[in-house]
């Protein structure tokens, strides 16, 4: 599988030899085929855009497709570590794949920068000095949604998520900061596409609001069916079901829904403005949350490379910890467990011309970290 992509062809002699002595090899394992490919493609495109814009010729990126299968991801990681001799791994989208790859990769002395998944185990007891999460801990956006639902005055929420670990984490996260009562709590089948039964229960429950975490196609199905059901309760969700990649497929059904995210297209800072513009120019579509995370991951990596050499692991780790870069989401810092401390925004789905997108309504949580950091000892 030689989907090898050299970041930039080795070229000019302008490279200042001293600062960039060894260069850096990055292994990206992400989902590029099958139904979940959209997310991986966005992370890859965001990441490669930042590398290209940096103009650095000493970063080589090897990209492989994990087909969203954990065993393939593990084998690719072994290959990148053993044969390709990469210094840094990144790219995994799904929590279950991250749980399969990350512990053994960091145990073998490789850095891992997560551009998307943030399972609680890796944030708490199993945190590791070489593991950095550039996106969020899995609970974060759900906590923000719980806090928002409470502040919006909802007293009786109906919550649902798929019956798998990330789903239980999501509902736990929501309940952590939500102060009202629960009108109902449902775990749906993973991959379920018909929600008529759940919507009927929502209708009968007497709830005043609905919170759901249904990533990918599940969320599209739920929203379309919910909009058609005549249940007019306000909906809150994490950004995953309202992302640029899938909003066009949801259409009007998503309009007006409040969702929580650490990034938005209209976030007002110069890095983000430049990112949105150049991403659109390069790929001909609006960037998504995942693309911004890929972009930020590359920015973090480049910033560390500016001040340290990857051969000196301690120095490179400190350089990563410093997170000395201007991110697309404004202020960004790492907590003690190498997970982000960042602002979470409340967004609303709107229509700009023919395109469905999000705009920021308010700041949800300021400088928010995660609760697992206290269990992390490194």
């Amino acid at each position, binding site marked *: 599988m030689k*989907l090898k992509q050299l970041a930039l062809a080795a070229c000019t002699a302008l490279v200042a030899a001293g600062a960039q002595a060894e260069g850096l090899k990055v292994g990206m394992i992400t989902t590029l085929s099958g139904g979940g490919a959209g997310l991986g493609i966005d992370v890859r495109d965001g990441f490669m855009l930042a590398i290209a814009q940096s103009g650095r010729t000493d970063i080589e990126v090897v990209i492989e*497709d994990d087909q969203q299968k954990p065993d393939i991801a593990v084998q690719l990681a072994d290959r990148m570590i053993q044969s390709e001799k990469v210094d840094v791994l990144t790219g995994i989208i799904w929590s279950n794949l991250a749980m399969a790859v990350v512990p053994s990769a960091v145990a073998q002395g490789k850095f891992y920068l997560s551009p998307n998944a943030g399972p609680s185990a890796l944030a708490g007891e199993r945190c590791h000095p070489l593991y950095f999460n550039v996106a969020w801990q899995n609970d974060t956006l759900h906590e923000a949604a719980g806090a928002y639902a409470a502040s919006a005055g909802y007293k009786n929420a109906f919550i649902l998520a798929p019956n798998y*670990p990330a789903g239980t984490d999501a509902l736990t996260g929501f309940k952590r900061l939500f102060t009202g009562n629960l009108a109902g709590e449902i775990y749906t089948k993973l991959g379920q596409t018909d929600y008529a039964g759940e919507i009927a229960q929502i209708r009968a429950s007497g709830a005043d609001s609905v919170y759901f975490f249904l990533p990918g196609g599940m969320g599209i199905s739920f929203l379309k069916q919910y909009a058609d059901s005549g249940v007019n309760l306000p909906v809150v969700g994490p950004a995953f079901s309202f992302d640029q990649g899938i909003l066009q497929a949801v259409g009007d059904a998503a309009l007006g829904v409040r969702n929580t995210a650490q990034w938005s297209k209209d976030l007002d800072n110069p890095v983000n403005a430049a990112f949105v513009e150049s991403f659109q120019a390069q790929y001909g579509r609006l960037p998504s949350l995942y693309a911004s995370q890929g972009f930020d991951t590359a920015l973090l990596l480049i910033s560390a490379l500016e001040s340290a050499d990857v051969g000196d692991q301690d120095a490179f780790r400190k350089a990563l910890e410093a997170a000395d870069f201007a991110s697309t989401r404004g202020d960004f810092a790492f907590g003690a467990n190498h997970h982000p401390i960042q602002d979470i925004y409340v967004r609303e789905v709107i229509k700009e011309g023919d395109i469905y997108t999000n705009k920021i309504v308010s700041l949800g949580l300021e400088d928010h970290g995660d609760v697992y950091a206290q269990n992390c000892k490194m």
Partner: protein
Amino acid sequence: MKKETLLNAVLIALFVGVALAAWIMDEPYLITLATKAAIFAIAGVGLNFALGFGGLVSFGHAVFFGLGGYAMGILAFHAQTYTPILEWPFAINGTRSMPVIWCVAIVVSAVVAVGIGALSLRTNGVYFIMITLAFAQMFYYFAISWPTYGGEDGLSIYVRNEFPGLNTMDPIQYFAICFTLLLLVLFFVHRAAHSSFGLLLRAARQNEERVQAVGHTPFRLYLTAFVISGAITGLAGALFADLNRFVSPTLLSWHTSGEIMIFVILGGVGRVFGPVAGAALFILLEYVLGGLSEFWQIYLGAILLGVVLFARGGLYGLIAGREVAHD
């Protein structure tokens, strides 16, 4: 010396050759691929025992592959966290020893195969295909939603388990373990196929009444074949889990059942070495085509299609000719 025997020898030589060459050239990933092929081959040989010799088309062998995997995952997880699996009525502790894990995987798979087999064998034909699938789906959804061992996230084990006298983390040594087991399984299956049991099984497949007439119950023959088949596939599951140091419900999904079946059909149904050729070819295709384009699965589909349409009897049928009535 028939063509088939020659082909068997070539296959074995190819496995050893690739692994050794990769070892000398320091390409550990190629060794990993060869190991994966050997493990899948074991799983395929297992399924072939029921499918090829007994005519039992099981679309649910992922159950055994997954059970073997989880046997490894659960035992190693408890050894890793120093927690007992059971405290009452008697204490059971986890283990890191591969031979123990293999035994547990084989026994658990065999026991479950007795249950599934006894129930499923009440049906036949397409109904048998679908009822075995139904059992596999039950285990799959159970594993996803059962939180104790990670649910959908699966279980990650830090280091490979131990085998006395070997360093299992060294790719070539782990390959040696898996390949030796493959040879043992092949030897066992070859003997079993040519034993009186094997002959009766094939006879039952062709004409049940005749077997009954000589005093045997086809049901028992089929069930025995199904249990042996499940046990072998369970062993493969344990090895696969150790290869990745990770287990998850993916092992139990119907895609896994389908893939194991593809190894068998691709290689040649009913040939002892068929699944070995099938697994090797499948992994080779995945590796070579994966580099061509983002849409490599189109090519994979086209090639598989070509094999079915133009190479009847799989690779073995193509190369070694059609099976003779008695061998």
